């Protein structure tokens, strides 16, 4: 009975030992390679490959993709590497971002950055052509996505009239200055 209890204890000890998280030597992220692949629609596919000091891919490593903005670094995505050591994300509008960085590990000690400025070709096409707009617009009147001539004339008359009056007033002010 005592022997059985000892065996059970040893078995439990082995199971507990096996369940403890282990740090395998050489699985620490040592290097990260950031690659981008642009798409015709202006988006970019970002791939970060994390390898250890021996060049072997590191799986399950936390990876953070960041983009530089006017006011600092904006986190784009937080993910982990797969079995191939790769983590991926899609940058929807790559053309408005100039610099991308990837950080590996909680402290971001392993880091890579890439400049997108060189691959910028043209601004995204924000406004479709008139032909497209006419086709897609179900709304009449002022909600219409294209300019309504009557609206332009109306605005022109109101604003033009007011600013012309201001001009007239300014002209009179100049006459006050010149008057004797």
């Amino acid at each position, binding site marked *: 009975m005592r022997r059985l209890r000892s065996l059970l204890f040893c078995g439990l000890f082995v199971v507990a030992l096996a369940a403890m998280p282990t740090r395998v030597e050489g699985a620490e992220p040592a290097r990260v390679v950031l690659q981008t692949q642009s798409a015709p629609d202006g988006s970019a596919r970002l791939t970060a490959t994390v390898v250890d000091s021996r060049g072997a891919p590191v799986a399950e490593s936390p990876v953070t993709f960041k983009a530089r903005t*006017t*006011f*600092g670094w904006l986190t784009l995505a937080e993910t982990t590497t797969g079995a191939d050591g790769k983590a991926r994300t899609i940058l929807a509008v790559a053309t408005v971002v100039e610099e991308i960085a990837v950080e590996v590990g909680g402290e971001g000690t392993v880091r890579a950055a890439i400049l997108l400025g060189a691959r910028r070709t043209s601004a995204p096409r*924000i*406004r479709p052509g008139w032909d497209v707009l006419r086709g897609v617009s179900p709304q009449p009147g*002022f*909600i*219409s*996505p294209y*300019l*309504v001539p009557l*609206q*332009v004339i109306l*605005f022109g008359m109101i*604003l033009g009239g*007011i*600013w012309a*009056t*201001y001009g*007239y*007033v300014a002209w*009179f*002010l100049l*006459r*006050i*200055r*010149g*008057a*004797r």
Partner: protein
Amino acid sequence: MPRRPDQFSPRERVLLASLTEAGPGFYALVGVLLAVIAWGIIAYTVQLRYGLGVTGLRDHFMWGVYITNFVFFIGVSHVGALMSAILRITGAEWRRSVTRMAEAITFASLLMGALMPFVDMGRPDRILNLLLHGRLQSPVLWDILSISTYLTGSTLFLYVPMIPDIALLRDRFAEGPAWRRRLYTLLALGWKGTEVQRHHLERIMGIMAIIIIPIAISVHTVVSWIFGMTLRAGWNSTVFGPYFVSGALFSGAAAVVTAMAAFRWAYHLEEYITEAHFRRMGYLVITLGMIYAYFTFAEYITPAYKMATAERGYLTAVFSGQFARLFWFTQVGGVLLPLLLLTVPRISWVPRLQRVLFLRPVPALATIATSVAVLLALPAVLPRTAALGGFDVIRQLPVWIIGALGGWLFLTLLPVFRQRPIAAAVVASLLVNIAAWLKRFVIIVPTLQFPFLPIQRAPAGWAIYQPTWVELSITAAAVAGFVLIYLLFSKVFPIVSIWETREEGHRPGAALSPAGGHGGVADAPAP
């Protein structure tokens, strides 16, 4: 021959007191205002660095306190131009002492109001996109165009009637600091008060007085359209334009009353801003308040009668739910009470109230203060859900008790307000302005809380809007900025028109004629 400040005539000395006198109180006030503004700038840098996430704004609450400030300031700005223009055109002589104060309020509040949408932007560096990619079909672009047009117009409307006074300052401050001399010389446009110059000035003032009225009305109408042109519950309304204009005039007139009282007290302008001015402004506030109350009733009764599905949640939250206290305060404290304060003290039986023992100020105030203290202590003593025949003591009783105490306080103070009509007007106007800001908040936020598609898959905290310290700090800084601009304006230019009040005394019938003589006005120097 230029005069030193000590050689001003007695009348000029009084009217230019705001320019020549600056005691420790003034510097303390400026210091406090600058400190609040500096704190607001720090808060804004935090917002710039970390984004709008540091505010209470979330996916469904794209507008909050900043747009509340925007609508409030643009509203307050209206009365200056409108009141001044209408009173000028109708030849109301009593307006001469107060129109410049009103016009300066327009200028200062427009500057602050126009700033708020930029603060509300998460990416202010993209502001140029509004012009580059703006759509003329969008009320947001209409806002930009109308506000910039109105700012230009109201600045001209403020400046043109000041020219004779600026010429006077140019002559009187010839021995003053160089910046003052240069500024006055530049802005005086070589004014000498000749016949030709006066003719041109009259013409310009006539044109501006007429054109500024439709511009002012259209600006706040356009501001209302950024809400009214949507299909959102609470915003989709055809009366939003006139409703906003009436609310703007009401709050703006109240702001003028506060400014009148402040300057009267600070610079001893009792001779120029009399009780009669407060009485007339009080009539104006009462009239505008009744118009505003009518529009409020019309605005809410129409959807409340139908309680359509889309609006049911919103209206319930406003009338009896989460926003009920704010909403009813804006109606009772912001409309009903100010109107009563401005009218009831004039009733002949009011002094008799003091004969009633429990309406005498000292015992009444002592009892009310004790009651409030007990009420504040009550929740800590009683269990939170103590029931009294099914009546929740903690939740329900205080509302009625506070209402009863408020009514008692009002009756007690009525004889006091009768003796001090200016104090009554100031209390009423402050209540109107506080409630006006809260009403803009109640217009903007509850609607966003009730979108057509329910808020889902969002963190629990994102379904309600609560302004953070960043937004409140920036709001405080905006108010401080408004006061500071107004204060500095009164330090550089006379806050009461000198040449117009001189005409009032000498030629009561004249409405738009600037005075003649060298520099526009020339009182005899003090002996």
